[in-house]
């Protein structure tokens, strides 16, 4: 329906010659498709919340647009080299690490209260309480202790010395001077009902970023005004409003009518819509299609006897023309993936084994695997088994359904039968992939971060089973002791060059074994008016709003 609507919109706008509304002085209205369910930094996990919070807060550390780790709230990124991080022996005999951070001296909450270690300790107290209901408990679980040295510096001791020891990207502070009254450790479960982030959202004391929230209407919009206590560059807009428009065709119409100025890439229109829009309105906006860390791929159920054979998996990948798919459907804006490692990531191995389209070689591999008898246009083995798989994805996702159809026809050309079976997202993710109920192939995406170790996705210890209550994300059932060891080694290897070697080996095993069929990395389309400067897409989950103080009207 959405695409029919988009088509109607396209045709009508082409005829109407729509005029663009002028930007209101000092104001910016941004369209996004989702509204955050809460603004508490630790309750619920949702991209819309992260985007809003980046306007008003800063984590201790993050990745910048070059995917390098940097300090935001801290003054200097602690490292073992600069002496601010030290490996330590923990009482249980494990090797841990103590990392000392210093909070920016000028950091103040919007009501003038300084951001101090009291906030750090309070955030830890809230987060580590299992009854609070924080979404990402892992970051609190890995902390053994936090010791405050003074108002601004503190040391965090973690239970494992990983290469990412100094990152605290999701450790977002909660203001102790406001939230202490709302948090009772004995009834921590009630905190989510009392948190001022939801009950008193416009309280300036909740924010220390470049902007603070001036108005919020649930499911409609959030308005921000500059925060006078912000310690960084002065924000350039007097008011920024994030307006929620769930229907992307209506979002386009709003952009053209001037109701919104800019559609953010992180939560905006789909890439095919954006490409069509660009054709109609090429001169009026700047377009940025930023490939990111959303990895579209096909999980293969390795319990399927046909897919257990590596030759079949490799043949399947050789039989499809991903370059053509990316070119025809996405005008080349989404790079073909060879493994789960993005070419923009420093660990990417440019010599990784690739599978360019080669139907002849694919046929040879299928023949070698025993599927050399052609009947009714499809390959069979000597036992009469047809080379046939179910290909599932999320129903209603137009881009994926298009890709699915192309794949089906390309595989048919080499004698592989594909039966398409799609399901609503909540069924697909809630049951089919999680409980490994798909019989052949599952097309979906993983979202990761720079240099992400896919331990839960590829380690044999993380295969979901009924016995482990479906814990883990290794939905393919991939088991390779070499890969298991490699994943664990990578995680604790501190030497960057040694780690690069391990990552190269990882990519070699991944591309040889093909537990999944890599497709491409999704690109986020940013449609920015010509007058708006300073929007820098990052391609990872720490997106453009983290640098909103740089947004300015030309």
């Amino acid at each position, binding site marked *: 329906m959405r695409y029919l609507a988009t088509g109607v919109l396209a045709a009508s706008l082409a005829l*109407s010659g729509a005029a663009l509304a002028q930007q209101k002085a000092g104001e910016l209205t941004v369209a996004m498709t989702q509204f955050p369910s809460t603004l508490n930094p630790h*309750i619920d996990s949702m991209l819309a919340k992260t985007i809003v919070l980046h306007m008003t807060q800063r984590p201790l550390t993050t990745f910048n647009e070059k995917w390098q780790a940097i300090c935001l709230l801290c003054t200097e990124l602690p490292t073992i080299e600069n002496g601010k991080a030290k490996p330590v022996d923990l009482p249980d005999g494990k090797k841990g690490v103590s990392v000392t951070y210093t909070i920016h001296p000028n950091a103040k909450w919007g009501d003038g209260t300084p951001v101090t270690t009291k906030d750090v300790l309070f955030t830890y107290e809230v987060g580590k309480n299992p009854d609070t209901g924080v979404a990402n*408990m892992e970051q609190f679980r890995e902390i053994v202790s936090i010791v405050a040295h003074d108002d601004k510096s503190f040391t965090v001791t973690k239970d494992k010395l990983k290469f990412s020891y100094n990152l605290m990207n999701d450790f977002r502070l909660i203001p102790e001077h406001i939230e202490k009254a709302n948090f009772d450790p004995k009834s921590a479960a009630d905190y989510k009902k009392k948190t001022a982030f939801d009950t008193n959202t416009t309280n300036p004391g909740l924010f220390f970023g470049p902007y603070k929230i001036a108005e919020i209407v649930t499911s409609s919009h959030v308005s921000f005004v500059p925060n006078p206590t912000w310690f960084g560059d002065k924000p350039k807009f007097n008011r920024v409003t994030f307006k929620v428009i769930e229907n992307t*065709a209506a979002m386009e*119409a*709003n952009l053209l009518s001037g109701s919104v100025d800019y559609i953010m890439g992180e939560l905006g229109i789909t890439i095919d819509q954006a490409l069509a829009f660009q054709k109609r309105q090429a001169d009026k906006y700047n377009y940025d299609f930023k490939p990111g860390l959303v990895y579209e791929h096909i999980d293969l159920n390795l319990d399927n006897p046909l897919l257990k054979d590596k030759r079949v998996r490799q043949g399947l990948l050789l039989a499809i023309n991903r370059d053509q798919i990316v070119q025809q459907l996405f005008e080349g804006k989404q790079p073909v993936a060879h493994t789960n490692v993005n070419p923009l990531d420093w660990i990417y191995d440019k010599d990784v084994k690739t599978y360019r389209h080669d139907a002849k070689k694919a046929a040879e591999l299928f023949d070698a695997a025993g599927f050399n008898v052609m009947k009714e246009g499809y390959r069979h083995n000597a036992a009469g088994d047809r080379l046939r798989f179910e290909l599932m994805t999320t129903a209603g996702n137009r881009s994926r359904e298009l890709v699915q159809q192309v794949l089906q026809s390309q595989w048919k050309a080499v004698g592989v039968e594909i039966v398409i079976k799609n399901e609503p997202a909540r069924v697909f993710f*809630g049951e089919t992939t999680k409980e490994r109920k798909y019989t052949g192939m599952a097309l979906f995406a993983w979202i990761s971060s720079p240099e992400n170790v896919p331990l839960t996705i590829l380690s044999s210890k993380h295969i979901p089973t009924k016995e482990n209550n*479906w*814990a883990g994300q290794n939905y393919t059932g991939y088991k390779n002791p070499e890969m298991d060891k490699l994943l664990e080694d990578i995680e604790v290897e501190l030497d960057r060059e040694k780690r690069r070697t391990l990552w190269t080996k990882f990519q070699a095993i991944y591309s040889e074994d093909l537990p999944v069929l890599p497709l491409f990395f999704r690109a986020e389309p940013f449609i920015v008016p010509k007058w708006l400067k300073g929007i820098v897409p990052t391609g990872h989950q720490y997106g453009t709003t983290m640098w909103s103080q740089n947004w300015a009207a030309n």
Partner: protein
Amino acid sequence: MTRFLSLRFLQALLVVLVMSFVVYSLIGLMPGDPIDIMLSGDPNMTAADAARLRAHYGLDRPLHERYLEWLGNAARGDFGFSRQHHQPVLAIVLPRLLNTLYLMIGAFVISVAIAIPAGVYAARHPRSWVDQAINLFCFAGISVPTFFLALLLIILFAVKLGILPAGGMKTIGQSSFTDQLRYLILPVMTLTIINIAQITRYLRSGMIEVLREDYIRTARAKGAHESRVVWRHALRNAMIPTVTIMALECGTLLSGAVITETMFAYLGMGKLILDSVLANDFNVALIGLLFACSVTLFLNLVADLLYAVLDPRISYR
């Protein structure tokens, strides 16, 4: 009459109770839950986190246990807390209900005000060019998908003419009544066009049939003025099936304007109920659906009472 009303009230209570159980069960039986969706979108969340959150929100308890607890609390006036919005349910539902009432009443009143004269005129002048134009409009109104109509209106009034906002509830920073009225025009227009088409079609066919009846001929033979014949004798009888349709339409407007609300980013009940069902936000979904159910039952009761007003042969004892 008192006995009839008491009986209908008890029936309505029973329907609401059964509905609450059915809705609760249907939401609970849907595979997957929002925690799974959260897990698939967050690389840092672990399966253990998911299990903990499921327990935290009570999603791991048996369905009947959760339902009975909800029912007990609801009976005491505690409608609970929205899992999705992190606010008390009534704080979410009541403003949405108010918004929907504006939309519903606006669309309904305008529809009826236009549809009745149009339907009567078309019935009195069948096959005239006006009748054909009204028929054409009605067919278009019934056939055109809501999203398509909404988009066309946005393009015409917001993009091309630039005289009305493309969507939303109000201009940010303003709270005047006239400003909010401007934002209501396009969604009301969308629903009105569809409603007019439906009501007019029913009324036209009802009127054509009634105007052929003997008692109409008798009234004319007695020398009654034509306007009295049409508006007093014919319309009252033709309105009986139309009133039923109007009552059902009105109920549908409360919970079923999802597409219109989505297209215009209008914060109404339809979208709230849909989102709550999809997000397993039991408390909000239930209260929203029960409100919708109660209003539909109430409107049907009003329709039943109106039958007696329109047709003296009908009486309730």
